[in-house]
């Protein structure tokens, strides 16, 4: 059932994002070919650059809006009468939205990279960039080994997905919480989101205080003294991942509990 939810979710988002990605690519090509015209102060070049910027902004803005809308409108609006009467558990509904959000955010980032690469290919400047990237990669691989480089790359993608998912769940938890305030659902959601942010900050400060005033940091340095820089980096990455995972779990629980026990469609 989750697969079916994801299929329809993909279609619902794809029908907006895919054409936009297409436009982004087209503008990237155009910009690549006309970028020289900007320097010559030709109006065509400037216009194309502006349109490119607009499409880029549209992609970013729409990605966020869609994440919000696919939850708010599809689950808690009139469509909720359809979605919540499907023979599907609440958990699957939440996971469907989270996975979709995370995937589209990462896809957007990848598209951005592709867009830049396309522009550079078309200007003919790709050669210098490829050299530069190649040199950076070479430095990294010689430091930590080729296998580790791939590992780090994969880890970064995973962390990106995790952060995207955590952010989406924070938004969902805020919308679900705000929904409880019947007359001011949107305002409630915004307040909830800000409140979550404040709580995160407070917790961060508490952790920092604990870190500074107790033995913990010393013990940490002692334990990791003999580890290679790469290993130490991996440990930090792991701790960071656990932190994000913990936040993800909290926001998931809030969202799940509210949808399961306190659903009240209008």
């Amino acid at each position: 059932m989750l697969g079916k939810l994801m299929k329809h979710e993909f279609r619902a988002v794809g029908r907006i994002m895919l054409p936009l990605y297409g436009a982004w690519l087209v503008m990237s090509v155009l910009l690549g070919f006309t970028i020289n015209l900007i320097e010559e102060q030709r109006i065509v070049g400037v216009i194309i650059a502006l349109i490119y910027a607009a499409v880029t902004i549209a992609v970013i803005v729409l990605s966020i809006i869609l994440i919000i809308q696919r939850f708010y409108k599809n689950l808690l609006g009139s469509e909720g009468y359809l979605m919540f009467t499907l023979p599907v558990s609440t958990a699957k509904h939440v996971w469907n939205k989270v996975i979709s959000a995370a995937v589209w955010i990462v896809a957007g980032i990848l598209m951005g990279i592709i867009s830049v690469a396309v522009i550079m290919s078309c200007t003919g400047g790709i050669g210098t960039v490829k050299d530069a990237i190649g040199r950076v990669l070479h430095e990294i691989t010689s430091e930590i080994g080729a296998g580790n480089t791939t590992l780090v790359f994969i880890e970064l993608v995973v962390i990106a997905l995790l952060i995207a998912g955590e952010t989406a769940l924070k938004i969902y938890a805020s919308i679900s919480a705000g929904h409880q305030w019947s007359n001011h659902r949107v305002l409630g959601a915004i307040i909830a989101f800000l409140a979550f942010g404040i709580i995160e900050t407070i917790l961060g400060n508490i952790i920092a205080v604990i870190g500074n005033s107790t033995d913990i940091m010393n013990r940490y340095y002692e334990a990791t003294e003999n580890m290679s820089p790469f290993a130490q980096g991996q440990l930090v990455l792991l701790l960071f991942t656990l932190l994000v995972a913990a936040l993800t779990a909290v926001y998931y629980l809030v969202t799940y509990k509210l949808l399961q026990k306190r659903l009240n469609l209008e």
Partner: protein
Amino acid sequence: MSVLEFRAVDKNYGRKKALDNVDLKLEAGQITGLLGPNGSGKTTMIKLANGLLQPTSGQILIDGMEPCPETKAKVAYLPDREFLPGYMSVERLIEFYSDFFGDFNHKKAEKMLEGLNISKSEILRKMSKGNREKIQLILVMSRDARVYFLDEPIAGVDPAARDYILRTIISNYCENSLVVISTHLIADVESVLDDVVFLKEGKITLHKEADRIREEEGKNVDELFREVFKC
């Protein structure tokens, strides 16, 4: 075991008591009217049975089970509002229903669509309101469900469409299914009802066969309703 049962159900919204100790048992093979003025709790009862609300106390049982994905697989709900994604075409909507509901009967849907001269490639939000409502009805009634909840199916609908809806309900009748029609427009619907439940301010005040009401009270259900619910 009854198909649908409410056991001592209370539902409060804050301080407002929407349902007060509701006890009800409905059986298969019936078309039951859930009748009451606006705000009497009809939609609340339907939402509870669909798992869209949680009771403050008491239980709602469908074939002995509390609302969950398993009961949702056999309960069909036509809300009193537009609830389908407007950007979808008829064909996509049929695919959606087929994907999620094992009891969705493709042939029934095709047949009903043919009769209405609506093309499958039409997009929902580009149709007239009347056609959109008919599509909703068709999708819900094309399921071979155990329980159908129709919330105000004929409110705000022209007489021809109303006839169409009532004919659809009658021809869809199945002795294995329960149909619950919730409405405040009784005169148009009462000839189709087996039995009748009066809901007043969250309490059930009557549950009787329609023909028995006509026999014993010498009145139509509509007339009795007006008496009971006089303002």
